[in-house]
């Protein structure tokens, strides 16, 4: 059927499922991805979903990658086209020589196919209608059935899938049997009627190891549990809602007092983002570890409070799961587009600490760390996730925790310290690091009380509108920000084994695509030194790295090269030395895109000027 040689690949291809939102496909698609994982082959799945509950198109992409490339690759080798609405677009996306899997119940005119792909039809609806009478069952089991058919076509271990189903329906034998039955209906039909396997195959390997498969939002939420958060206030917004939801469900398991069955946490769904941030600020002022989870538009609403928290020096943690903006932008698509708005959130001279986790493991680590940093620095800490990390399952190293670790509650003056005669000035820089001591309300009957305000005050928190104490305080806040540079996670540098004049700076969810692109560029003889920024304010190594290279590419997922601007602005770097590589269409950045963009620019740099003709 295909006039192009069908793609042949073992453990290295991309399957994309095109579904209708709300049709129950998500769990079947996830089952497929997990089955590959159980066969010891790494996968990298991504949800591409609409702002809708039912009816609109949704896609689930699974990159099967024995080499462990967890970034998006781009292109599709096998399209499971279950949505007639997007048929033409889905078909166009298949790589030449690729495969199309579809429900062949209703005959399609040949004009609806492509000559350069292999078409695989399975009459899913017909089989379902024959086997099931309940419409809901027909829908749900159709999904399991295509997983069954795919297992035959891709030569997958059916036992691995059955095992997963049995774990999912543990104790619900009837459901297990029904799902297993549907799986085999699809698989048996394919084995009987189709040529199995096709050119794409999943072969058992041992490349997953002890890694875990987790969403960044869950990991960040678990980080908040381990980091000792006791107050969470939030307002629903995609793509951050699942962070607060995960925190809630973890707390139901992990934060119940064993004796009284009461909760060691308070979680408030606020009436809006303003109230959520207000609750966080109030709780943190009063000595609790408090956080909110939101996305760009929510941060906009919180900015007045963020300015207050910066100036009044209140610890607060804000998880920003970024999505494409501006305004409501593309609420279900990914970007790294709030770097500037968070770094300088609010009115007046403000600067905030940002952390950039690359995957769920770092989301967990930075999630827990952010509470120590907030208490130590007495300022808001932003954990900058994005939809790509937050809402997709990502394979990552297992989470670890050192049981000897103590929470760093920062400089808190206790009643004992006050009684011992230690001088207390709320905004007094006693240690030269710009960080003053604070007291919790209710500490001491006569000492240590102070009045918190967003208006200017002197070192002892006394109201003043004088210029000198105001400037003195603002300078101290800058000193504190300097202190932060050595407390936040340092950048990670991976130097090329061959000397090079070119470097790359990148951060967050770009990491896996960057690593893969770097391998491709290296193979092509293009050597690069890499620096992954993990926090703002920037450690001096960022400046050193730029100084050590002729040109540095700054790879990011926004239009305006926001991290590059921040580096230029904060480190006083000549903008001409930082070359932006920008991807901002709402899809996750791919290795192909990075390798192509950087490769082309490097090639352009290599053009040797014509020798001046000497007459």
């Amino acid at each position, binding site marked *: 059927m295909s006039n192009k040689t069908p793609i042949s690949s073992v453990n290295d291809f991309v399957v994309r499922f095109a579904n209708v939102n709300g049709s129950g496909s998500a769990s079947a698609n996830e089952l497929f991805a997990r089955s590959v994982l159980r066969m010891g082959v790494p996968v990298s799945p991504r949800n591409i979903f609409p702002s809708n509950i039912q009816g609109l198109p949704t896609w689930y992409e699974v990159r099967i990658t024995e080499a462990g490339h967890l970034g998006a690759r781009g292109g599709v080798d096998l399209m499971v086209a279950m949505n007639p609405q997007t048929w033409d677009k889905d078909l166009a996306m298949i790589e030449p020589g690729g495969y199309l899997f579809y429900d062949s119940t209703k005959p399609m005119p040949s004009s609806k196919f492509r000559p350069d792909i292999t078409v695989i039809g399975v009459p899913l609806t017909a089989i379902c209608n024959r086997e099931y009478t309940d419409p809901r069952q027909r829908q749900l089991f159709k999904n399991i059935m295509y997983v069954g058919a795919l297992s035959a076509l891709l030569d997958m271990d059916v036992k691995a899938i059955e095992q997963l189903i049995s774990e999912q329906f543990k104790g619900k034998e009837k459901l297990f049997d029904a799902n297993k039955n549907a799986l085999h209906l699809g698989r048996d039909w394919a084995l009987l009627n189709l040529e199995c396997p096709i050119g794409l195959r999943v072969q058992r390997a041992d490349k997953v190891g002890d890694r875990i498969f987790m969403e960044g939002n869950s990991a960040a939420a678990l980080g908040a549990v381990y980091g000792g958060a006791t107050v969470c206030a939030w307002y629903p917004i995609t793509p951050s809602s699942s962070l607060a939801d995960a925190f809630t469900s973890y707390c139901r398991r992990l934060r119940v007092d064993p004796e009284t069955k009461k909760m*060691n946490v*308070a979680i408030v769904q606020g009436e809006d983002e303003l109230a*959520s941030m*207000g609750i966080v600020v*109030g709780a943190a*002022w009063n000595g609790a570890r408090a956080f909110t989870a939101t996305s760009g538009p929510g941060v906009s609403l919180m900015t007045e409070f963020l300015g207050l928290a910066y100036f009044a020096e209140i610890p607060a943690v804000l998880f920003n799961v970024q999505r494409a903006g501006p305004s409501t932008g593309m609420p279900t698509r990914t970007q790294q587009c709030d770097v500037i708005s968070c770094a300088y959130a609010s009115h007046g001279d403000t600067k905030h600490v940002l952390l950039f986790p690359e995957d769920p493991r770092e989301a967990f680590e930075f999630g827990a760390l952010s509470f120590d940093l907030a208490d130590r620095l007495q300022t808001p800490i932003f954990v900058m996730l994005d939809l790509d990390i937050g809402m997709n399952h990502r394979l990552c190293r297992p989470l670890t925790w050192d049981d000897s670790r103590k929470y760093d509650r920062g400089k808190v003056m206790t009643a004992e310290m006050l009684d011992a005669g230690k001088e207390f000035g709320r905004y007094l820089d006693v240690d030269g690091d710009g960080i003053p001591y604070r007291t919790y309300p209710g500490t001491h009957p006569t000492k240590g*009380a102070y*009045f918190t305000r967003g208006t200017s005050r002197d070192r002892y928190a006394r109201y003043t509108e004088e210029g000198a104490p105001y400037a003195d305080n603002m300078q101290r806040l800058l000193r504190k920000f300097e202190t932060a540079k050595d407390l936040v996670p340092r950048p990670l540098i991976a130097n090329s084994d061959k000397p090079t004049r070119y470097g790359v700076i990148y951060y967050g969810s770009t990491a896996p695509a960057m690593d893969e692109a770097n391998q491709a560029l290296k193979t092509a003889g293009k050597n690069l030194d890499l620096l992954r920024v993990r926090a703002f304010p920037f450690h001096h190594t960022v400046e050193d790295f730029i100084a050590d290279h002729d040109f540095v590419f700054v790879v990011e997922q926004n239009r305006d090269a926001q991290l590059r601007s921040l580096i230029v602005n904060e480190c006083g770097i000549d903008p001409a030395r930082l070359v932006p590589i920008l991807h901002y269409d709402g899809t996750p950045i791919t290795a192909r895109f990075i390798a192509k963009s950087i490769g082309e620019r490097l090639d352009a740099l290599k053009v040797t000027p014509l020798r001046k003709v000497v007459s």
Partner: protein
Amino acid sequence: MTYIAKPKFHHPSLPKNALGYTHRDYEGKVSTLCAGCGHDSITASVIEACYELAIEPHRVAKISGIGCSSKTTDYFLNASHGFNSVHGRMPSVLTGANLANRDLIYLGVSGDGDSASIGFGQFAHSMRRGVNMTYIVENNGVYGLTKGQFSATADRGSKSKRGLTNNDNAIDMVAMALQLGATYVARAFSGDKTQLVPLIKGAIEHQGAAFIDVISPCVAFNNHAGSTKSFDYVREHNEAVNRLDFISGRAPIHVDYDPGTTQVVEQHDGSRLVLKKVSADYDANDRLGAMNFLGHHASKGQIVTGLIYVDSEPEDLHTHFNTVDKPLNALSEKELCPGSATLEKINAALR
């Protein structure tokens, strides 16, 4: 000026309360409000109420928004932590603070602009959540700090000092608080300390969302003819439902009262509110009746004052959340961190 320190010395024979504190221990900085401001009378009543209740000043957290009223938290309880937060956002800050430490007393001070205009949403949600607090609105119907604009509690038809007429309907904060589920709702006139002090005491002892709307004339911008929040207007139109005596459960004091004209409400903590009724058929335990009574008198142009509603078995936010008795800000790694063994199990379930 707040940066001018108040002298600390006082007459040695100043009376002391049960804790040995004098009035001076409940005072704050010198007020920077206009001479004769109703808000300063409220400040005096807060000081009196805390003194009479023998509260430890440092066990109070005083939280406010922005505006003339919100500045007053600096003028009482010097030994308390105060937080002059963001315009209209006192309720959320107080809610968070309350969640962090349930053992302190939370005093929220706000104004009509702060609570009925910009902060109306937060006011509403703190009431419906049942945050355990005393929420005082110092209500003058006008923006003082920005010089005389109408607020959302200004009555329709009332005139500004500049001669403009307010055409918008007024928000009655008391009616709203009742509707939203506040469990202690009162209104008073700032100039009537004998009415206000027991109402504040009752609110502080109340273990739920207590709201007091205090009509507080603005001498600079809303005390002229045509204003419905002026001293003269409020005195003429005040319809008190009851006069309150407060009896603390911790230190019972015998008070004589005439059973024919009083209603005794025992609060959950054992304190008793003795209501000397002006209106004999008024029942302060009846939320629906209170709403009716309020509407009926409003239509006659009367401002109902007194303890309008009280639920003697209130629930608060901590009850709803089933939080531990120990303040959340006092929990340590031991209670909060599940540890590495649990994390191993979580890892295992994610493979």
